[in-house]
């Protein structure tokens, strides 16, 4: 008996470095990194004198603007996301139950659509300024008005649609934190506000940082907003270098540089955490203390929650709706419904795939903690920070190579041409989506897993459940909320995704985002509005479901 058990242990120890989990993680990382690696490999390809030109002229601007944009979005998403999450989690005030789920709505808004609508509202020729001039008899130069097409404007647009990442993750963290810790802090002399700053906030730090990183990755990858607002960032620079200078190599090198910046940021954050653990040290859950807010405080709380919701969702959706009312009868036809069906199908498939892959990856990192799996996960989730078009090129090139190599081999050896097996198929598109959105699903799954103490794994193992059985019987049910979050986020992001779809799609395959883009690109915003609004509406339902699911996910909730 004893010798058998010893044997088993020894075998496990010997194989630990290179077993199924590690291999799975490495395989996923390899596949997911492939497009990014194609991009990064461009560093070693000479790109002519493009760099000396970029360095002499615009590179500094790209750097400075991108950093400003990132700093602004980080600050804005942090302030909005964390404060609203704390308010709806820890306080009661009229309307809280509705605001609790409504606050995630901006997530369903494509950032580019928000940018279009705000430009229409706040531009010189827009609704507000036109009204001001008419009302006060001003004309050009008589008054100052903030320029929406600027870096602060872009920060505002991106912050307004991206804060829900921080909000959702922070709220989940606040919901699951121990009341005991907050109470201890109170008895140690910290008032509610200081308790929030000294305990609530730092405890939620990994979740908040994850949310901000997601927002920043999307900011870096954004092309629609910065392009529309004429802000020169790395992202616009990449396309300018590619389309304008006709230098794809230099463009991908810019993207690789961007990746480096992102990597650095992540490393700095990990360093800052030091040895602190965020597993809960307590297992007691009491209903969260609901600070009942009344009077001015209640109004303040309502305002704090409603303003981002109004600006990030109601106003742009409202404007889109007024346009859509005028144009929908002309726009809604068979093509519209086909595009809708395509969008929903592709988004659902991408969501399931991305979550499944993330689950395996996150579980591998947990089962076999170590440098190998850590690096595998970091590499596998890089795709999010790369503009979609660049990832798409990174998919297209190796897939085309694969197809043509197989085809040549088959022609030579079998006399049959296999043509393009993967290029221009849905499979290639889905692969690209997974690469791009794995960061989102992985982070959601991982933060869910981190809340399940390793003792549960051990308990399951001791009860005879193997790692796969533990995954199926323990983690999956406990993770349901996180998995759902992951799936919905990927679904919504895929609904909004544009450049990769555009580049990789099969023949005669339209999505709502493509239609929106084409019409908006032709400056037919009113016609585009029906499609844009449909993206929002199709994304809305799962977002609402998600929000309800998170509210139910508090441990011990009956």
């Amino acid at each position, binding site marked *: 008996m004893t010798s058998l058990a010893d044997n088993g242990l020894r075998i496990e120890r010997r194989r630990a470095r290179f077993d199924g989990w590690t291999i799975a993680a490495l395989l996923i990382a390899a596949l997911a990194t492939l497009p990014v690696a194609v991009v990064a490999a461009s560093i070693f390809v000479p790109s002519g004198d493009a760099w000396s030109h970029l360095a002499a002229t615009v590179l500094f601007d790209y750097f400075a603007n991108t950093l400003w944009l990132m700093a602004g979005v980080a600050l804005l998403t942090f302030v909005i996301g964390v404060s609203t999450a704390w308010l709806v989690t820890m306080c009661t005030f009229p309307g809280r139950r509705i605001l609790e789920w409504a606050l995630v709505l901006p997530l369903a808004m494509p950032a580019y659509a928000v940018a279009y609508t705000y430009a229409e509202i706040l531009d010189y020729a827009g609704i507000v300024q036109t009204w001001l001039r008419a009302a006060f008899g001003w004309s050009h130069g008589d008054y100052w008005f903030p320029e929406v097409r600027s870096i602060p404007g872009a920060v505002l647009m991106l912050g307004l649609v991206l804060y829900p990442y921080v909000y959702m993750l922070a709220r989940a963290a606040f919901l699951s934190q*121990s009341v*005991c*810790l907050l*109470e*201890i*802090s*109170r*008895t*140690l*002399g*910290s*008032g*509610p506000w*200081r*308790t929030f700053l*000294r*305990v609530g906030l*730092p*405890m939620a*730090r990994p979740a908040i940082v994850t949310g901000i990183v997601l927002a920043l990755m999307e900011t870096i990858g954004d092309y629609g907003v910065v392009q529309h607002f004429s802000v020169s960032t790395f992202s616009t620079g990449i396309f300018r270098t590619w389309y304008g200078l006709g230098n794809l190599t230099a463009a991908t090198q810019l993207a690789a540089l961007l990746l480096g910046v992102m990597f650095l940021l992540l490393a700095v954050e990990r360093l800052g955490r030091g*040895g*602190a*653990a*965020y*597993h*809960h*040290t*307590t*297992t*007691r859950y009491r209903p969260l*203390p609901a600070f009942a807010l009344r009077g001015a405080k209640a109004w303040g709380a309502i305002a704090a929650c409603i303003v981002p919701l109004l600006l990030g969702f109601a106003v742009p959706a409202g404007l889109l709706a007024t346009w859509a009312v005028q144009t929908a009868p002309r726009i809604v036809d068979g093509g519209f419904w086909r595009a809708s069906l395509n969008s929903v199908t592709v988004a659902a498939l991408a969501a399931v795939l991305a979550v499944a892959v993330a689950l395996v990856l996150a579980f591998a990192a947990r089962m076999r903690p170590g440098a190998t799996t850590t690096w595998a996960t970091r590499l596998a989730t890089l795709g999010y920070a790369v503009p979609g078009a660049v990832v798409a090129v990174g998919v297209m090139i190796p897939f085309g190579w694969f197809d043509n190599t197989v085809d040549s081999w088959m022609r030579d050896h079998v006399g049959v041409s296999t043509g393009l097996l993967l290029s221009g198929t849905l499979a290639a598109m889905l692969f690209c989506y997974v690469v791009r959105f794995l960061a989102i699903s992985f982070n959601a799954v991982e933060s869910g897993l981190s809340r399940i103490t390793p003792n549960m794994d051990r308990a399951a193992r001791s009860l005879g459940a193997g790692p796969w059985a533990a995954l199926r019987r323990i983690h999956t049910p406990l993770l349901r909320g996180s998995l759902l979050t992951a799936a919905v986020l990927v679904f919504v992001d895929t609904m909004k995704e544009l450049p990769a779809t555009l580049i990789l799609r099969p023949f005669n395959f339209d999505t709502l985002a493509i239609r929106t883009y084409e019409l908006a690109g032709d400056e037919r915003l009113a016609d585009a509005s029906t499609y844009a609004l449909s993206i929002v509406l199709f994304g809305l339902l799962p977002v609402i479901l998600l929000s309800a699911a998170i509210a139910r996910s508090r441990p011990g909730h009956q």
Partner: protein
Amino acid sequence: MLGLELAGISRSFAGTRAVDHVDLAVAPGEVVCLLGPSGCGKTTTLRIAAGLEAADSGQVRIGGRVVDGGGAFVPPEHRRVGLVFQDYALFPHLTVLDNVAFGLPAGPDRAGKARALLTRVNLADRAADHPHKLSGGEQQRVALARALAPAPLLMLLDEPFSGLNFRLRDRIGEESLSLLRAAGTATLMVTHDSDEAMRLADRIAVMRAGRVVQSGRPLDLYDRPADLFVAEFFSEINKIRAVVENGVVDTGIGLLPATGLANGTSVIAAVRPEAIRPGGSAPALATAVHPMGAYALVKLKHPVRDITYLMRVEHGATPEVSAKVGARVGVSLDPRGCFVFASEGDAPGHAAVMGSR
């Protein structure tokens, strides 16, 4: 009196009275245990003292100052109370030193004070570690040091030692409380463990269904329980249903005086196992012996009536009794461990089943 004073505290949740007119005082340097089964309201009482809950009525004074009641409510951070939870609730994102320094005001000797406290709990060498690296006992000591750091007037301990194994529990419990006594801190400790309360408390208040049933020094409670509930909380007890006849109660192994109870009253005679002594005239059948180490519990059966008893014999006497399993033994009663209580709300006819556990 300074320290903690609770006067007529009540608190309801959703119509249920969790705390019902509780009066309680803890003097500086005194350790009072709130003892009771789970759901008796002891934790709510503690939370009201801490300011984590507000009382519906009544008054809370700490250090002579009214902190709750009469329209006043001082939030927990201004009450100068320390709190230690069962699971210690150490801040996982802070080092041990930072945990202890958490409640100390910013200043040049903040770290020094925290370090001094860690030295007092013998954890100076773990200052830079994060809590998850510490053992349970070490975590408990950090939690105590953290609560002590701001020199609270009142220390509130919520089952503070129940997470520890029992050997550690004794030692750490005594060390902790001597630290608190030395600091002159009034200490209110909630527990459901009567042995712990007995050993550590200066006074014990037993709670049941939101009320303090009895309070006093540990031995007073043990020797003069106010009712069956208190009596059976401190040890196993033989309960024998009977009726008062001629001013006495017949337990089947001896008569007990039924002081103050009229003849014909249905009563329960509570007999502690150690109050049944081997050697005596009362006959009983020994059916089993459960050795407990220092002593043994002997299961007895009344030769005629359907009553069973537990008798406690010291280790030295065990072999002798063990030899008699299945045979008759003679026993006697020590009245100091026997109590008679009127059985509440029980119809006399109900007492058909006589017997103990």
